[in-house]
């Protein structure tokens, strides 16, 4: 069992205090309905240092670890699934710059993102390509740098973004084929952002198709090592999936808490519905799943902070936590009866957010591919 430190408990308390003061159910519901980023709430979160708490203090990060980031995500998402995720996701991409960027790139790009002054959007996924596959987008080298072309999908935060991170095929060295590199792209001419429309979940950060059309990149826009884009992508997914697992854990916990609160007060057949045997067993199953997910996610985050995480641990964490979130929200709806289907009661929103999260950065099938390959190992 992981014993949380005093500092980690303080993160939980700070997150809880913040969410209790700033998260308003009506605001959340309305923002989710119209697909609007909660800028004011986010700015106050950024002022408290909630953006990039696992990134170095030198660049305006929190100087803490991934476990603290997970605790923050869990706490915020438990108190409101949509607002919590929006706050957590607003700085998504900063970790790539922190992990792969040069000193100069970190100094230049990280503080504005982590202080909430500019947004970054991660544009890695393409239609017709697996999420870990080599990209069709290309960055052709010339004497002034690269010329970027390609189309990316499911890009969140795209409308707000000051910079984009992307992945493009770059010419391989003599001994390799299909090499790819990561790039930082300024939001400027040549970038077309097309809203992909309403989504099942994740509507506060939105989703867009992003096309790079003959975008010129100077040499200092290469992120990480040339030709190492796919390896960096794997490292990115490891951290990303643990962070998303933290959000999923919060969704699961929040849905469970709402279900418990409802069955404690709803009377049918002259009894609180929490008194019925089946209700108790349903809640028991959820509590067991949420607890199992919590241990798995904390363990993965602690392993990451100790430099011992791997793709398998991260994939298991996200798979377990996302499935717990879906199950908890689904049962929360059912226990609420007709009220559960009404937007006013919020559990349907948790269900949609949980489903959407489970499809992001590795759908269950992708994650099973990763875990299965890792557990079985290389076959002769």
């Amino acid at each position, binding site marked *: 069992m992981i014993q949380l430190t005093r500092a980690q408990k303080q993160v939980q308390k700070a997150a809880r205090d913040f969410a209790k003061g700033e998260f308003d159910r009506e605001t959340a519901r309305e923002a989710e309905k119209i697909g609007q980023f909660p800028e004011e709430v986010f700015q106050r979160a950024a002022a408290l240092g909630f953006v990039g708490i696992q990134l170095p203090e030198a660049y305006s990060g929190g100087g803490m670890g991934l476990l603290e980031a997970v605790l923050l995500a869990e706490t915020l998402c438990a108190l409101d699934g949509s607002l919590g995720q929006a706050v957590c996701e607003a700085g998504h991409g900063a970790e790539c710059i922190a992990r792969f960027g040069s000193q100069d790139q970190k100094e230049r790009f990280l503080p504005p993102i982590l202080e909430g002054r500019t947004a970054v959007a991660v544009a890695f*996924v393409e*239609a*017709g*390509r*697996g*999420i870990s*596959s080599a990209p069709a987008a290309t960055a052709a080298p010339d004497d002034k740098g690269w010329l970027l072309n390609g189309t990316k*999908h*499911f890009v969140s935060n795209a409308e707000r973004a000051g910079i984009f991170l992307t992945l493009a095929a770059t010419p391989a060295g003599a001994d390799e084929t299909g090499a790819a590199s990561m790039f930082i792209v300024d939001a400027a001419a040549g970038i077309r952002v097309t809203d*992909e*429309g*309403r*989504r*099942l*979940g*994740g509507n506060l950060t939105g*989703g867009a198709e992003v096309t790079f059309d003959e975008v010129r990149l100077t040499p200092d826009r290469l992120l990480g090592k040339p030709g190492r884009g796919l390896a960096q992508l794997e490292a990115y997914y490891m951290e990303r999936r643990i962070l998303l697992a933290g959000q999923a854990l919060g969704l699961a916990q929040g849905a469970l808490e709402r279900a418990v609160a409802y069955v404690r007060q709803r*009377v*049918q*057949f*002259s009894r609180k519905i929490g008194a019925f045997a*089946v209700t108790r067993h349903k809640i028991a199953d959820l509590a067991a799943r949420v607890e199992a997910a919590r241990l798995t996610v904390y363990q993965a985050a602690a392993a990451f902070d100790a430099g011992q995480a791997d793709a398998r641990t991260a994939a298991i964490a996200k798979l377990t936590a996302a499935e717990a979130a*879906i199950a908890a929200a*689904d049962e929360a*709806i*059912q226990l609420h*009866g*007709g009220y*559960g*289907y*009404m*937007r*006013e009661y919020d559990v*349907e929103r948790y*269900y*949609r957010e949980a*489903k*959407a999260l*489970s*499809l*992001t950065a590795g*759908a*269950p*099938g*992708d994650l*099973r591919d990763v875990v299965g390959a890792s557990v079985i190992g290389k076959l002769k």
Partner: protein
Amino acid sequence: MNILTYTAEHEDFRRRLHEFCAAEITPFADRWEADHAVPREAWRRMGRAGFLCPGVDPAYGGLGGDFRYALIVNEEMARTGQTGLTASLHSDVVVPYIESFGSKAQKRKYLPGCVNGDIVTAVAMTEPDAGSDLAAMTTTAVEDGDTVVINGAKTFISNGLVCDLVVLAARDPAVEDRYRAISLYLVEAGTPGFNKGQRLDKMGWHSQDTAELFFTDCRIPLANRLGERGAGFLMLMAKLQQERLTCAVGGMVAAERILQWTTEYCRRTVVDGRPLVKNQAVQFALVEMATEVKIGRTFVEKLVADHIEGGQIVVETSMAKYWTTDLANRVANRCLELMGPAGNLERAPIVRGLRDARIMAIFAGTNEIMKQIAAKFMGL
């Protein structure tokens, strides 16, 4: 061997309905979903074309058709991508109360309009504190000479706003026995003291209106009581077999449509040069879902055949309602997983399918109530 066989009349009805839906409903589905309403005229067109209440006696304008027509209407409507034109609720759930229990005068007054689409119906049983526990309803009906005075509130009433006529369940406060106190009444929209509330904002079924209904010293003629005084609960119970069977059909056809769409999606979607259907894990998932859907159809068709023969199948229809509506949700969830991040976009029809399926496990008696009823009738 087919469990259900269809006559040339059935086949002709299906063909004409299919053409009607393609011309008059499907092209407008997205607009109706966005508008959160179905134009009143669409109901009239469907009625005038002969597709509402096919079970009603020809003396009142119907076809006098059997329950196979209900199955056909459900199957064809499931293809339209909208839920607002709830023909099966009107034709197979509400109007049968009037057909079975109405006086000659009531039938002459209302049935022709129900058939031709001039009268859209709703049934009002559920109350804020009487959902699963129906007998706990508090709406009162006090018979006073040749009028009845109604007071109370109903909620989650499908067609609550569009309806012209409500089959209302209410209790006589002077009668102690909570079951024998309940009578059914026909209340016309526009009757003084009968007010329709706000449109309730739901997770799905966006084109369909669900509302609260309020009755404040609402006076209706005693001639509008449906059936015997105090027989309301028995009449509700008598009609619930068909209501549950209708829901079971709805769950099954929803699962079929979602699976069919997803199978086609997996055939045409190529990832990393290979169609999704060539992935063994995808194949097994589709095969497993197709198996369950076939099991569901076999069961439901058997029940439709039994129901047409007049069989008492309370236990089986309760089982079928819970199992097929759970199936619809299970299939929707799994299909979305197969799509990956594309499954988060509302432009994928199965996202609406997933949102719409969720209420099926709750309405017309939650699936927990279905199990409770089956347990009771199984002598457990």
